């Protein structure tokens, strides 16, 4: 309004006629519409995103604070506060979700203290370096505390008296799986960039597992790990393992899930790393070779730094994806024996299947928190550093 008034008085001062003023007003309106057009056009998309993403997020949050009850003629959703979270962390589901906590072995203590010492040392270095904001410092301290807590949980639940819950089992799937997948994917990528015979054929073969549905992979591994009827039965018999079953032993079953996950996802690592390696600068390698560098030195000092930014993104994508693992343990072992191979997502799925919708939503929120926290820590602490370097 103020702008309009100023414009009108200015027009009156210069003695512009009524018709011209009308034309000017039209121009002002149309220019305002033009300015608004961007927002108007984007509004439907924003509403769709809000409806499909933010709204369900809040709905599931409210569900995690409630309990479903069937009553005459329908059902009720009653608010129960943090009871579902309490049940998972301290109540009847604690041993299932968190695990059985027991005194760690000397190795467990060494691992825990080592991780804490490393985290504290990194924090001290960060503080000494200076040039950080308050928010950033709070974030670092939080990351150190939570990572320390996870290390404590690993040390206490992986001891001989303890038992890992679905949180720790998921972490094992993620970190062991990704580490091996990356190492194997890199090895295969290095091999297929060499001038070897039939390398094109092998590139296609190495990609095949990624094309197969996870359910198919789970059934395949279910057959292969069956020492009684599977294709390796004669080998197991010859080794005296005819009466041993992978899926009857908690660690055997977890290993079976991790191996099948590695088999399925190594091709993804391989194909992206292959593309990164083929896209690296040839001049640097040639220069290094002219300077007398051997193959290992070329790989370590030139190739690896060049593919590091791609690698960190690749690991981030896989990490977010791996936290949601559900199909392999569900089909391969049905989460068993007992609950040994249950991931957090499978835990949430089973809770949902038994109509514990509140408990299921609470697990899903804990997973969301864990993935977000670890991904942000990874991006802030590691990836940014690598990319900057």
């Amino acid at each position, binding site marked *: 309004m103020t702008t309009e008034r100023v414009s009108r008085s200015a027009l009156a001062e210069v003695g512009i006629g009524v018709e011209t003023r009308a034309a000017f007003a039209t121009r002002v309106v149309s220019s305002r519409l033009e300015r608004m057009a961007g927002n108007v056009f984007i509004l439907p998309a924003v509403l769709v995103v809000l409806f499909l993403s933010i709204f369900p997020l809040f709905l599931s949050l409210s569900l995690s604070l409630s309990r479903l009850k069937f009553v005459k003629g329908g059902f009720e959703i009653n608010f129960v506060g943090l009871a579902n979270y309490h049940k998972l962390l301290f109540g009847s589901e604690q041993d299932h979700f968190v695990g059985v906590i027991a005194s760690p072995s000397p190795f467990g203590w060494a691992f825990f203290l080592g991780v804490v010492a490393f985290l504290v040392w990194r924090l001290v270095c960060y503080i000494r370096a200076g040039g950080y904001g308050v928010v950033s410092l709070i974030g670092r301290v939080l990351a150190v505390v939570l990572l320390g807590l996870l290390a404590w949980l690993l040390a206490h639940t992986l001891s001989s008296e303890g038992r890992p819950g679905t949180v720790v089992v998921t972490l094992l799937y993620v970190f062991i799986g990704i580490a091996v997948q990356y190492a194997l994917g890199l090895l295969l990528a290095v091999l297929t960039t060499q001038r070897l015979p039939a390398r094109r054929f092998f590139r296609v073969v190495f990609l095949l597992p990624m094309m197969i549905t996870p359910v198919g992979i789970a059934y395949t591994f279910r057959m292969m790990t*069956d020492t009684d009827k599977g294709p390796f039965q004669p080998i197991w018999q010859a080794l005296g393992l005819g*009466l041993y079953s992978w899926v009857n*032993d908690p660690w055997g079953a977890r290993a079976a899930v991790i191996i099948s996950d590695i088999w399925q996802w190594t091709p993804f690592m391989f194909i992206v790393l292959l593309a990164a390696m083929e896209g690296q600068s040839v001049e640097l390698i040639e220069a290094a070779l002219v300077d007398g560098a051997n193959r290992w030195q070329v790989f370590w000092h030139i190739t690896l730094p060049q593919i590091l930014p791609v690698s960190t993104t690749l690991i981030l994508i896989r990490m977010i994806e791996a936290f949601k693992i559900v199909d392999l343990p569900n089909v391969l072992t*049905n989460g068993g*024996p007992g609950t040994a191979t249950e991931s957090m997502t499978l835990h949430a799925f089973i809770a949902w*299947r038994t109509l514990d919708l509140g408990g299921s939503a609470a697990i899903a929120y804990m997973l969301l928190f864990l993935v977000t926290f670890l991904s942000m820590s990874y991006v802030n602490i590691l990836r940014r550093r690598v990319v900057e370097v």
Partner: protein
Amino acid sequence: MRIRWLVALVLLTVGAILTAPVAPVVASGPETTVSQEKPFEGIEVNILTFTGPQIAEPLQRRGPDFTALTGAKINVIVVPFSDLYQKILTDMATGTNSFDAFVFAPQWMVDYIIPGYLEDLTERVQNDKDIQWEDIAPFFREFSATYAGRIYTIPLDGDFHMVYYRKDLLEKEGMKPPATWDDYLAIAKAFHGKDLNGDGDPDYGSCISKKRGAQAYWFIFSIAGGFIQSLGTSQGAFFDTETMKPLVNNEAFAAALDIYNETTKYGPPDELNLDVGDTRSLFTSGRCALSMDWGDIGTLAIDPQTSVVQDKVGSVILPGSTKVLDRKTGKLVPCDEKICPHAINGVNHAPYAAFGGWSGGINAAAKPQVKDAAYAFFSYMSQPAQSNVDVTIGKTGYNPYRISQFLNRELWVKAGMSPKAASDYLGAIEDSLNSPNMILDLRIPQNQRYQQVVLDKAVSQFLSGEITKEQCMKQIYDGWEEITEELGREQQLEAYRGTLGIPTK
């Protein structure tokens, strides 16, 4: 011109969409005319049950016959067993009502009846002579079909756990069928690792389904029952009938867990991942000396196409114990006439009516004609003409539940059993059915949470070595207490006492 065409096209499309639902009704007009010969012509009945082949198989096989008789088309939809309870509940509770009828575990019916989801079938049954209701054994009429004096389901199956043994092997070794669980373990140990079917490979002493999320969670109470309940059915085996405190944290349940765990030593390597279908085929392929199961192995063993143990199978009532629980101290005490009045040769047996037998119920929200057709189909399936054949076929998963099926041994001989095997098989079921110390399955509100969620998880964790015996018992105790507190102790206690026939406090 183009716009006009476009508008006309849009109008036509909208018109077609709007009239589409009407079209089949118009088309089916003549078909919906009720004919005397085929009273349900044009009616479709969607029945939900669990993934077969058993249980669903006879429904699917006899569906076309029923269509030919009445005109009603029977669609059988199947889901995994672990999903069945909630699929039925959510379908009705959310008003989706995509299923008109269900074949399910009758112990769950309490959760469907209280909110008013299941159709009361009392009048229909009373007016139906063909079903021969009085021929159904009283236990199944009362436990599997009736709630608070009204009939809600039609029994299609009769269920008891019992023990099967290889008669030929035991006779050869001069061993007797197991009377106690110690006998069971001794026999299992004696035969484990030996070649039992002549194929050169070592076989197993005992095969019991122990898969989580399947139909295995009843077995632990089949062992624990003989240690916990000795004074008769009304004593109850799950909770104290005065306090509703679970009877799972004591020496009796600990002994049962030890036995159950030891059977795993003499079982197939992947026993913890085997469903009942898997253990049944292992037994009928001659790979197991012993097994615990419902009545299915008895009929599967006579199938010449799949069984190599025809006429080599014996069956007995569930083994028992010579020591039982003193509920005051939580300790095991030796049996005497006072503590174990129903003991046979000093052994307290407590046959477990696990599950109760698959039964058919009807969605109260279905259309009246569909309800009638669904009832007619369940009645047809249960009538002796059909049922007396189906219970003798192993792959149906249906076990005897009619008096005539127990009395008429000819049926079984005709199906391929030797008179001795028929006598053994039916005798074991009759012993269980007539036992005054029979254990009734849980039928209190949300019994599925007590058993399929809490019990199943804790026992499977124990069997896999993830938790200790003490942790397992504590987990079940705490989990059951949590549910009881949530639903109201007094309400649950009254329901429990009600199912055992104990008067209200």
